[in-house]
């Protein structure tokens, strides 16, 4: 089932995308989504109006001018092969299964136990090549009919990732939205063989470390836990990241104890500690109600143990605010 889904998401395409076939509208959309991680930033389920497609095409053209170095060389011919795609996909999954079994034998995360236990800092995401961008998804209020735009590309010398775009808090005129104006960059959920969901175990670290360079705008860092329950997919833990805007890089350290809990976009009175053994994804959101361009350059995202930080949870629950917890 997972293989069929992967195939429908995009056939095997060597770096250069062919024109979409008019007879397969479903595949048309999926081709555009799959092959454009380098050439075009994947946008979450957008509206289906032709005007939006046109504006996307314009933006894509604009973006392609900026990333001219990404165009494939003339020697590489575009090739679409159904059989090869399926075979390669199956081989890839079985190879990952074999690696999984071997790594399971070696130790946690494929490394010996003493190495994992003595680790005090770890770089989880870094941006050194196009394949690092594939681990992220960018989204904006375009999915609800807004006018914000967001793109993700590699920075200069392939040493960082640049998240940029334009924020627009113009409310979509659909009769139901009251507010608008957000752009986000979310990491993809790590997958194992046969698309099995995985989670990060950061239980031996206590602080998030980010090396970023922004434009002075306030961002929100969101962490989601791995869950099997649908209702919990709207729950996340957030904290603020204030960028300085100067030419110098900024090292942001956020202890995990500071993250506050929110459900369905609302900060809850009852606060719970962020449990670090099953982290699913991290995201950066900009929603500061200031229209205009923005950018955020990210060098790497890591976690480390700060021995001076002993706080377990920064917020307390009180019987007045949440009596249910104190029954």
């Amino acid at each position, binding site marked *: 089932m997972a293989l069929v889904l992967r195939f429908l998401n995009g056939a095997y395409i060597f770096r250069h995308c062919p024109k979409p076939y008019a007879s397969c509208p479903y595949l048309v959309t999926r081709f555009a989504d799959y092959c454009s991680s380098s050439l075009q930033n994947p946008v979450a389920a957008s509206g289906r109006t032709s005007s939006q497609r046109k504006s996307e095409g314009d933006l894509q053209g604009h973006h392609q001018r900026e990333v001219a170095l990404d165009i494939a060389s003339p020697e590489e011919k575009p090739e679409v092969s159904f059989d090869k795609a399926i075979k390669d996909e199956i081989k890839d999954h079985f190879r990952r299964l074999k690696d999984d079994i071997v*790594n*399971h*034998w*070696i*130790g*946690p*995360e494929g490394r010996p*136990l*003493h190495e*994992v*236990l*003595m680790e005090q800092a770890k770089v989880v995401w870094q941006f050194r090549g196009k394949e690092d961008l594939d681990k992220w998804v960018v989204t904006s209020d375009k999915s609800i009919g807004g006018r914000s735009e967001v793109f993700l590309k590699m920075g200069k010398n392939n040493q960082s990732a640049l998240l940029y775009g334009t924020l627009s808090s113009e409310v979509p005129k659909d009769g139901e939205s009251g507010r608008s104006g957000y752009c986000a960059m979310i990491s993809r959920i790590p997958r194992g063989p046969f698309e099995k969901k995985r989670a990060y*175990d950061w*239980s*031996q670290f206590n602080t998030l470390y980010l090396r970023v360079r922004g434009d002075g705008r306030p961002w929100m860092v969101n962490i989601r*836990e791995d*869950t*099997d*329950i649908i209702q*919990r997919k709207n*729950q996340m833990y957030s904290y603020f990241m204030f960028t300085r805007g100067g030419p110098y890089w900024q090292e942001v350290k956020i202890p995990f104890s500071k993250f506050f*809990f929110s459900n369905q976009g609302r900060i809850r009175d009852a606060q*719970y*500690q962020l*449990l670090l*053994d099953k982290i699913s994804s991290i995201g950066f959101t900009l929603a500061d109600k200031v229209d205009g361009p923005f950018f955020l350059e990210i060098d790497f995202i890591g976690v480390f143990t700060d*021995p001076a930080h*002993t706080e377990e949870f920064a917020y307390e629950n009180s019987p007045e605010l949440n009596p*249910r*917890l104190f*029954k």
Partner: protein
Amino acid sequence: MKPLVLTTIMSTVILGTITVLMSSHWLMIWIGFEMNMLAIIPVLMKSFNPRTMEASTKYFLAQATASMLLMLGVIINLLLTGQWTVLNTPHPITSNMMTVAMAMKLGLSPFHFWMPEVAQGISLSSGMILLTWQKIAPLSVLYQISPSVNPNLLMTMAAMSVLVGGWGGLNQTQLRKILAYSSIAHMGWMVAVTTYNPTLMLLNLTIYIMMTLGTFMLFILSSSTTTLSLSHMWNKTPLITSLVLAIMLSLGGLPPLSGFIPKWMITYELTKNNMVTAAMFMAMTALLNLYFYMRLTYATALTMFPSTNAMKMKWQFENMKNTTLMSPLIVSSTMLLPLTPMMLAMF
């Protein structure tokens, strides 16, 4: 939780299990299971957070499905035999159905997937109850229907459980998950001998409960939920560190500790009944369990992992947690091997 509420809930948990133990009517057994399940849910959610809620939901779904399957087996048994009594030999179809229902309740493979997730999501004290007390009722039902249980089905599930318990626990760093996989493996050993000598199953259960309770109490005393926090225990309580060494090796079934008794007796019983291959397979896969216990022991007691200076000050603070039962449990978890003939005579 308020004391009155906690007393009521815990009484219901205990009453549910005792109802199952004392009943000879299938409907009363089912009622006992339901009482026990519904009362344990708030115990699992004692420290309320989204993770415990998810763990309790998963536990409820697994147990409710098993109870449903048990009820289906009971009703089919009623249709085929016209009897509600437990002691009457049920029809093979119904005994298989009941076996599968009990396997789901116990977390035997291939119905074990809920066990590590639930154990990881709840607190240490709730996990202690889940992995010890909650095993008594399903095993008592298996004990009662053991003459009519399909031995091939049970042996297959037992072998798979020992393998899954050993393999799954291999690269875990979370202690509750390690103990959950340990529970799966031990349940495999217990049900393997059920059709040949059910009293050995009870002996294994008793020793397993003592060892698991002792382990959990040690972890609760040091508030350790990960291998890393356990590896820093040498800083805070060196005596407890050495006890962790003993109890881990006992859980792994190494002689001359208590944990060796059930493995030895079960292997002997299986060999007596010409199940040499199964006994050999289970003994070899038990080495996987021993491997991850040894790894825990290595990290905890055999090496002194580097730690910060802040940890070294904890020795001066007296531990205020209740340790009444810890001493007898640890003694009985490690030093009972010489009493094996007496225990065999008792059971």
